């Protein structure tokens, strides 16, 4: 292999996207994704068994497509990286088993990496080397985390996370209340664009006392309930539901808290760069407000293109390539899939750095 530009294939199967990406050092060659989201839509959320079945069917065809589109033969690869957690256990196992088989059959090293760390590392192929440290705000259907990242290959510290629903989950649930389809994020974003912010929904964990105990944590469960109550009251009173206004007001409440705490974390920890990732990073209001508030605070904002914010294999390949460049240890073939892998474990089976003041 060329020392400065390892050719790495990354596999991501932690939820409902079968992702296979290939990077050459810090250059993205391909990002192939097969999604089972439409199969889940009628259930209003991801059904683990449906996702696992879809991963098995899509795994090898997606690897094949990625190689074809990148013009890469599997035999040319220098390494294989795979999301080994956190995520849906049965879904993770499909990707982990496939990655091991590739590693074994091709005789190249295997790197089992953390899903959340990969969401941070993907920006390297988009915007170049990560400033060290970087602050990362990861917001998706399963995660809402604020991470201080001195080194994405082995030192990630959790400053806070959602104590109940993830931000994307709140979007899904509120969309259902408003009669909008799953997944809720894009539909609420679209509806909000023609709505007005007319309702002052609560901002979770922002009161004085909460800012002491849960300074960088989030809570969206109360907000979701407040929206449901408001909607039901309207219906009970026989009034038409102003869907666009509710969507805009709800979205504003989520985005306000996310950006306020992210910027505060940067300021207090003296970090000059904020990266926003995860599926919710595709939200147009989140991007706009983050831009506005980062500019005002003198913080450089980095947001990958929407296709690299949602789950994908390129982010895993990007982190794998960084692992190789920094000569991090290789994962063993008995690597487990760890559905509740803590974000502080960038790589499976390695020593853990835990920020004991912030137990997340």
């Amino acid at each position: 292999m060329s020392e400065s530009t390892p050719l790495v294939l990354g596999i991501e199967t932690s939820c409902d996207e079968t992702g296979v990406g290939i990077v050459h050092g810090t250059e993205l060659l391909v990002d192939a994704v097969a999604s089972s989201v439409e199969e889940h839509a009628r259930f209003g959320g991801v059904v683990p068994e449906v996702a696992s079945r879809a991963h098995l069917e899509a795994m090898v065809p997606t690897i094949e497509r990625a190689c074809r589109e990148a013009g890469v033969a599997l035999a040319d690869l220098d390494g294989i990286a795979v999301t080994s957690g956190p995520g849906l256990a049965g879904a993770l196992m499909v990707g982990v088993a496939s990655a091991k088989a590739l590693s074994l059959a091709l005789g190249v090293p295997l790197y089992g990496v953390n899903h959340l760390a990969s969401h941070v590392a993907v920006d390297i192929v988009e915007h170049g080397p990560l400033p060290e440290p970087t602050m990362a705000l990861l917001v998706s259907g399963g995660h809402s985390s604020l991470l201080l990242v001195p080194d994405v290959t082995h030192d990630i510290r959790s400053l806070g996370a959602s104590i109940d629903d993830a931000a994307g989950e709140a979007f899904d649930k509120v969309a259902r209340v408003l009669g909008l389809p799953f997944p809720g994020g894009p539909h609420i974003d679209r509806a909000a664009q023609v709505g007005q912010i007319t309702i002052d929904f609560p901002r979770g964990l922002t009161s004085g006392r909460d800012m002491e105990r849960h300074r960088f944590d989030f809570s969206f469960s109360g907000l979701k309930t407040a929206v449901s109550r408001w909607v039901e009251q309207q219906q009970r009173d026989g009034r038409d539901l102003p869907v666009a206004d509710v969507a805009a007001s709800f979205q504003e409440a989520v985005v306000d808290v996310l950006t306020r705490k992210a910027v505060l974390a940067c300021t207090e920890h003296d970090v000059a760069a904020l990266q926003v990732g995860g599926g919710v990073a595709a939200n147009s209001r989140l991007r706009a407000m983050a831009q506005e508030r980062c500019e005002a605070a003198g913080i450089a904002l980095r947001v990958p293109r929407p296709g690299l914010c949602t789950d994908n294999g390129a982010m895993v390949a990007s982190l794998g390539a960084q692992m190789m460049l920094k000569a991090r240890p290789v994962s063993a073939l008995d690597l487990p899939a760890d559905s509740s892998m803590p974000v502080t474990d960038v790589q499976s089976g390695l020593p853990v750095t835990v920020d004991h003041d912030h137990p997340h």
Partner: protein
Amino acid sequence: MLLALDTSTSAITVAVLGLDGGLLAEQTVIDPRATTEQLAPLIERALREADATPGDITLVAVGTGPGPFTGLRVGIVTGRSFAHARSIPVLGVPSHDAMAQQWFFGGAEGTVLVATDARRKEVYTSVYDRVAPEDEDHLIWARTAGPEVRRPQDLPEHWRGLPTLGRGPHLYPDHLPQSVGPLDVSAAALGGVALARYHVGEDQPTEPLYLRRPDAADPGRPASTLRGEGGPPAPKGRP
């Protein structure tokens, strides 16, 4: 050489065979909850025991179940991915066929029932008969029923009295009294079935034999927040 593996029963089992059917190595552990961890190291060990490298493997055979879904998928995706990486064919074998092969190859005659654990108080079943093959390339048995899934007490009376392979009789001795043969799949036998079918040009798809639809319920209407009604259980959130 052929690499054979199966993860549909309590055994995680891997074998390396010559293309003439001769067994070069077999590695098995009984640990149905650790398929993801154990399978790849077992393949590595079997290759070493056979004094082979991945490049020596020209065919892969994988058990397609039925069996508990999570472990089954780990085996199938491993077989498919290994074969894809080496650009070689991957052959699927219904896992019960491997148990029948082992049984009749040992000299047994007549009819045999395979009953393996399907969890949820059910068993996966297949029925096999000893047959006279057309020639020595063909298998010496034929599947006459199954695989299917049902409660052991719902099996036809005349099946329940048959000599039975698999863990079914150990789990449900009242309904399946005649335990006779192997409890779990052997990859060596699975490889033998795959090779026999390969040599006569039979199609061997690797689609998993789930035999059950995924558990999933339509969520219906959102639960009311005003009256505190309980709604139906929501699907798991996205991690």
